[in-house]
């Protein structure tokens, strides 16, 4: 791509890069799921999570890139469908970047298949008055669908550089770097009315785009069809869930955990640590601190590495595969009606499914939802009922070992409660539900490289985020135990824990652990169940309460950050009694019916 168009406008003189007081700030802007984050990663060498569905990026990411001889600050922004009119919270974030001095130059990233849509956005981006470059990404997918774009003609009409790219393969990247020097303000209609822009975009597209009926994407189209039709889509969903259970619940939570917990820790690390401590540490207090009942190594590290890590790693791998395939948004078609009862629409399936990875992240992803009411309900339901990956897997690990009926009971009760609370919230809370309008990403075969990078990054994130909290939690428990507070908590909790819920007294402290991190509490239950201290009914009741119970500290802080203190505490105030009374009711019913599992 040359800059001849721009050069002509600048009287033939190529514009040289000037010395600046601060690095040039380049913002990547575009519709959701067009590959901004991939371009960002390619420009800066910094990986940000890339997935095949709209709304993966809900906050800005910054990185540095070398363009020619100049260092630039590159900003990745959340995808926008519009920058004026009715916009969502993540779109407002992008609007802020464009309106402020956070950006000097804008690269609009466009999906080459959807040129008309991209062009509708161009005047809105141009309205912020920054020089622009248009990057036509996924040009290969456009070709395979019989679409060709005359980039030179488009550049001439717009008066800005137009670069054809296949960002995932790095194609067009150096052209994009070169084009930055020629960025210019485009010739676009200045009217603010959407219909005027639509006419302009339609006509311009007609002039520069060629289409043929030949499509090479038959397999993709067939898969897309199979996953969204109820007759094939529901069996596929069942198969996906079963595969998830096999891979995470059986392979991760049973095979791998057994290998690491009994093998590496049970026979290796823990005996070794005990041996070293017994021999070299003369102070019993320090010994206990490291290898005692609440020892940093025997409890904290064992929980984090042996019980939770294998499960989290297998889950992230499988989850990343589903994300990149473009499958998850298709579930929204099936869920829309159900979610409507809860004051949401099918789009809410995205944060809900993401919550299975991590509720804290998912709480942030609720930004893609249309109205404040929807966001609040989604955040509430995430905190209430969606088990995060580690918790989900410990649930599978414990209950999968008991019976399928136990697992089914737990999920039925939790989903029932979510449904009920959602239904009530939809009626009690003020505000509107937005209409269900969702773009479905194309079905793609995930790129193994991206999948591995993403999983590795998430596992590292887990290690960085969870392990310190596990250790801190263990220290806290150790201190509480030493000063006798644990006994006080256990006896104070006894009427509820033993009386109402019918659980062993030791469960009280596990629920406290559960507040630090849900998976930490779940790991505690896992050990309890492993040691044969829980009956089937007790395991189901304890896990149900734990799943419904208050979210972990990180999730709570995220709720406060996104929705404020009052809302955060209000959610806690709703969830805690719901969890305890559901557990009590379940315990009562199961005992009454004489269920054994």
């Amino acid at each position: 791509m040359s800059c001849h168009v721009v050069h002509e406008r600048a009287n033939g003189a190529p514009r040289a890069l000037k010395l600046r007081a601060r690095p040039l700030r380049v913002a990547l802007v575009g519709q959701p799921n067009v590959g901004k984050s991939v371009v960002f990663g390619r420009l800066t060498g910094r990986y940000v999570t890339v997935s095949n569905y709209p709304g993966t990026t809900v906050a800005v990411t910054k990185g540095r890139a070398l363009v020619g001889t100049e260092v630039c600050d590159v900003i990745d922004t959340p995808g926008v469908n519009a920058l004026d009119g009715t916009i969502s919270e993540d779109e407002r974030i992008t609007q802020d970047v464009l309106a402020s001095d956070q950006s000097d130059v804008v690269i609009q990233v466009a999906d080459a298949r959807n040129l008309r849509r991209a062009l509708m956005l161009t005047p809105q981006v141009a309205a912020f008055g920054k020089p622009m470059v248009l990057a036509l990404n996924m040009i290969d997918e456009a070709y395979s669908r019989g679409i060709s774009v005359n980039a030179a003609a488009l550049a001439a009409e717009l008066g800005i550089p137009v670069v054809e790219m296949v960002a995932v393969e790095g194609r067009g990247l150096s052209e994009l770097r070169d084009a930055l020097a020629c960025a210019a303000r485009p010739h676009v209609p200045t009217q603010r009315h959407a219909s005027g822009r639509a006419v302009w975009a339609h006509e311009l597209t007609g002039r520069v785009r060629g289409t043929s009926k030949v499509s090479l994407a038959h397999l993709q189209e067939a898969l897309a069809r199979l996953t969204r039709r109820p007759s094939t889509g529901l069996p596929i969903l069942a198969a996906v869930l079963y595969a998830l259970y096999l891979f995470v619940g059986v392979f991760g939570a049973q095979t791998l955990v057994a290998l690491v917990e009994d093998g590496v820790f049970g026979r290796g690390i823990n005996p070794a640590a005990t041996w070293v401590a017994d021999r070299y540490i003369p102070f019993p207090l320090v010994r206990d601190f490291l290898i005692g009942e609440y020892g940093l190594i025997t409890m904290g590290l064992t929980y984090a590495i042996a019980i939770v890590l294998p499960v989290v790693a297998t889950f992230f791998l499988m989850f990343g595969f589903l994300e990149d395939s473009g499958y998850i948004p298709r579930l929204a078609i099936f869920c829309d009606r159900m979610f409507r009862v809860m004051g949401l629409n099918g789009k809410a399936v995205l944060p809900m499914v993401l919550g299975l990875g991590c509720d804290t992240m998912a709480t942030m992803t609720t930004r893609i939802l249309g109205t404040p009411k929807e966001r609040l309900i989604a955040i509430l339901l995430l905190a209430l009922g969606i088990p995060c990956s580690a918790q989900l897997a410990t649930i599978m690990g414990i209950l999968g070992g008991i019976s399928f009926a136990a697992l089914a009971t737990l999920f039925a009760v939790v989903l029932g409660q979510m449904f009920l609370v959602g239904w009530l919230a939809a009626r009690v809370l003020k505000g509107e539900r937005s209409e269900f309008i969702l773009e479905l990403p194309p079905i793609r075969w995930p790129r193994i490289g991206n999948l591995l990078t993403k999983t590795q990054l998430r596992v590292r994130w887990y290690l960085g985020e969870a392990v310190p909290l596990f250790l801190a939690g263990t220290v806290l428990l150790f201190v509480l135990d030493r000063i006798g507070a644990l006994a006080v908590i256990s006896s104070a909790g006894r009427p509820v824990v033993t009386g109402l819920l019918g659980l062993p007294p030791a469960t009280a402290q596990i629920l406290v652990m559960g507040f630090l991190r849900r998976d930490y509490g779940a790991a505690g239950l896992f050990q309890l169940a492993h040691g044969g201290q829980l009956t089937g009914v007790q395991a189901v009741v304890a896990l149900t309460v734990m799943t419904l119970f208050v979210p972990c500290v990180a999730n709570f802080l995220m709720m406060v950050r996104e929705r404020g203190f009052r809302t955060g505490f209000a959610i806690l105030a709703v969830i805690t009694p719901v969890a305890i009374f559901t557990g009590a009711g379940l315990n009562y019913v199961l005992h009454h019916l004489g269920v054994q599992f």
Partner: protein
Amino acid sequence: MSSITLAFSSKSKHPQRRDAAKGVRQVVALSTLREGMRGAVVAVHAGDNGRTDRLFALGVTPGASVVMLQTFPGIVFLCDQTEMAIERSVAHSIMVRPEEIRS
């Protein structure tokens, strides 16, 4: 209720062929299209909560070509190259001029 309609005469590639065979077809709501039917968007009726803005932003604008892909449990259609799922009430407000199903 307002509606945004544009004076797009059907700018199809082969207007004469279609018009010769069928004449000008009536404008109907997208929700009435059967699976596999094609059409061109003529207008989008505004809702009360920025529905038009959102649909426009997704490329559902007058002149866009649509293909109905699925009508149950939700409506799924292809608008140019974008596959979209919408609820029925939204589909009521998208007015299209259908093409005859190719035999």
